[in-house]
């Protein structure tokens, strides 16, 4: 070994780093045999401790004392209190840092906040003329940033695919799966009565949010989530057999892939007309009417169907491993 390397390895910082990484400090003067002997000795010591622990007198059967003894031998106890203390200090530090930073943020709704710049001004001023919506949030996410939302819808699609890869049971697996009698529960009086009353209300509320996305708060994501929750409630009350009559795997596949494909086509059309400065064939219509604002309403419906399918698919896959 050359001299500089030796010097380097004897530096305090290097030794500290190796200590942190858990390497054993090996002095270069110690020969290999001596090192081996040292290792053997330590190994014997370890074995002796383990032996003592395993063959300890069988007098005390108190598990707490047992755990204490184990901790004493392995030296866990010494560090445990330090860990708790350090975690506490770390938490306090992070909380302090966050509060300190939040204090510099502008007040809620203040006029000179950096978010109130010419971008939002432009959206609010020209948005209605550009897109024909009343609810500017929907106009922004489905018209100005439609490509963004398109990617988000893909995220949902891929998430369901991943869950399907992990949890879907098909063919042989399905036959071998333990039959859970609660997948088709006994008629539960309270649950079914409440569900009969609530499910139509929830579904109508979801569809209302969906169709009024361009007029009132809401839109595809919220409406789809509410509809999915309604489907889950129906399934929980009436079981998989009854739900399977109108929402089985075939319907699910058609709805999910079909809505995403249609959405892709609409986005392609929008991009094409926008890039080439061609007027869209879909009229914007009268502001405030239900059939207005061009392609936003169909996109809302497609996104809603996609989200509702995703919600229900998560539940069905987690519960049963199929539809």
């Amino acid at each position, binding site marked *: 070994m050359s001299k500089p390397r030796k010097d380097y390895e004897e530096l305090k910082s290097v030794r500290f780093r190796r200590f942190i990484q858990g390497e054993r400090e090996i002095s270069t003067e110690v020969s290999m045999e001596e090192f081996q002997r040292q290792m053997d000795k330590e190994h014997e010591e370890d074995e002796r401790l383990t032996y003592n622990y395993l063959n300890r007198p069988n007098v005390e059967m108190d598990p707490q004392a047992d755990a204490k003894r184990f901790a004493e031998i392995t030296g866990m106890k010494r560090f445990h209190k330090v860990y708790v203390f350090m975690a506490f200090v770390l938490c306090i530090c992070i909380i302090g840092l966050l509060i300190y930073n939040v204090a510099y943020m502008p007040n809620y709704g203040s006029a000179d906040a950096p978010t109130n710049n010419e971008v939002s001004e432009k959206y609010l001023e020209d948005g209605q003329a550009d897109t024909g919506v009343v609810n500017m949030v929907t106009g922004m996410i489905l018209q100005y940033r439609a490509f963004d939302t398109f990617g988000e819808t893909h995220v949902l699609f891929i998430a369901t695919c991943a869950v399907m890869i992990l949890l879907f049971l098909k063919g042989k697996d399905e036959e071998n799966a333990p039959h859970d009698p609660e997948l088709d529960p006994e008629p539960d009086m309270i649950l079914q009565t409440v569900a009969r009353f609530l499910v139509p209300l929830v579904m109508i509320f979801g569809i209302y949010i969906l169709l009024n996305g361009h007029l009132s708060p809401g*839109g595809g994501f*919220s409406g789809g*989530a509410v509809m999915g*929750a309604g489907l*889950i409630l129906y399934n929980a009350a009436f079981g998989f057999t009854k739900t399977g009559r109108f929402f089985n795997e075939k319907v699910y596949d058609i709805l999910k892939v079909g809505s995403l494909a249609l959405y892709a086509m609409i986005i392609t059309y929008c991009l094409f007309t926008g890039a080439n400065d061609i007027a869209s064939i879909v009229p914007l219509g009268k502001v405030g009417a239900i059939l207005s604002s061009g392609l936003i309403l169909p996109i809302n419906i497609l996104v809603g169907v996609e989200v509702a399918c995703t919600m229900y698919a998560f539940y069905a896959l987690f519960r049963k491993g199929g539809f």
Partner: protein
Amino acid sequence: MASKIIILLLVLFLIICAIGVSFTKNLLVSVVIFMSYSLVMSVIWIFLESPDLAITEAAVGAGVTSVLFFVTLRKIDAMKDRPEELEEQNALYQSNEELSGEEASHE
């Protein structure tokens, strides 16, 4: 002023819920606390004038996520008392079947 006090109370509840979730030993209880956290959060969204987020939070946070947690807990048998309940039920079914079998043989 009144709305400010209500928001402060709700935020205090949120903090208590967030601490409670991590300190409860029972998983079922922590899921229920998490659910109430989402519900209160959706009320706060309404106070912050974003009703669309409130709807989504109520549907996803308080509804679907909790349902998924419950289903998972049942899958891994982490719901407390369930194995004993099942045993009791099975014992009841067996005794019922025996009784009905005896009746059938008598007839």
